């Protein structure tokens, strides 16, 4: 597959283009991290993160590619790996994560919301993640999910979001510690 075709497919939210890149670039990129002191699990994790950064930038139309996709994903993964090495160095010898309360509460809140997302209907969830994470516009959402047009997609997104919000709010009120 040519780079141009990969980009076109990602812009439509086609995950098979992501699969394609993963298999194609896996050995080249994980190997470069293994050579820089990472273990296999870390190499895989960093590569996946880099690829998802690329996916998101393209689907949000935030990236004008001036080099090959492989070069771009390679340099993102190198950056992420260097950051990870710095982080490891900084925290070496220190006791692991001492949570301070504000941070802890925030994490708890996000966890409850994630639970709700997990439990909501898949068709609504897919539309919300495609819009809020992948950054697809209403025209692309309509196309990907077989909706009549951008207006239909916008209404559907609104209804799904409302449903999730109410669901989360009902969970919050039953968790007193968050008040």
């Amino acid at each position, binding site marked *: 597959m040519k780079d141009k075709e990969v980009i076109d497919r990602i812009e439509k939210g086609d*995950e098979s283009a*992501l*699969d394609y890149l*993963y*298999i194609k670039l*896996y*050995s*080249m990129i*994980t*190997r*470069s991290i293994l050579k820089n002191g990472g273990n296999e699990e870390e190499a895989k994790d960093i590569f*996946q993160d880099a*690829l*998802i950064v690329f*996916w998101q930038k393209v689907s949000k139309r935030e990236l004008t590619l001036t080099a090959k996709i492989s070069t771009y994903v390679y340099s993102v993964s190198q950056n992420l790996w260097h950051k990870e090495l710095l982080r490891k160095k900084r925290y070496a010898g220190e006791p692991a994560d001492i949570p301070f309360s504000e941070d802890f509460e*925030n994490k708890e*809140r*996000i966890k409850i*919301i*994630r639970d*709700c*997302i*997990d439990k909501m209907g898949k068709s609504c*969830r897919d539309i*919300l*993640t495609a819009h*809020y*994470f*992948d950054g697809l516009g209403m025209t692309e959402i309509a196309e990907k999910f077989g909706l009549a047009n951008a207006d239909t997609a916008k209404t559907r997104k*609104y209804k799904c*979001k*409302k449903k*999730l*919000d109410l669901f*989360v*709010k009902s969970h919050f009120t039953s968790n007193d510690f968050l008040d």
Partner: protein
Amino acid sequence: MNADEKYFHMVDDYLSHQLNPEEVLRFEQAMKNSPDLTEEVNFQKDVRNALHDFRKSELKGRLNNLPIKESTYTSGFWSFQERQL
């Protein structure tokens, strides 16, 4: 579009950076005057973060299920480089 829907889209557009500078100013002034609006904006930020978390793990789960041949590990460019070393 009813009032509720308009309110929703305004908060949504603010968080998606879709408002022009003038609208941002007006929106942030409105937040200062309304604790309810501020609370709603913070709530929406959390929901967005959770959607991000969720989607990211979903995509990682998808990638983890793809077949990666260990043999591809030693093929191609990098093994060529190794031979040079």
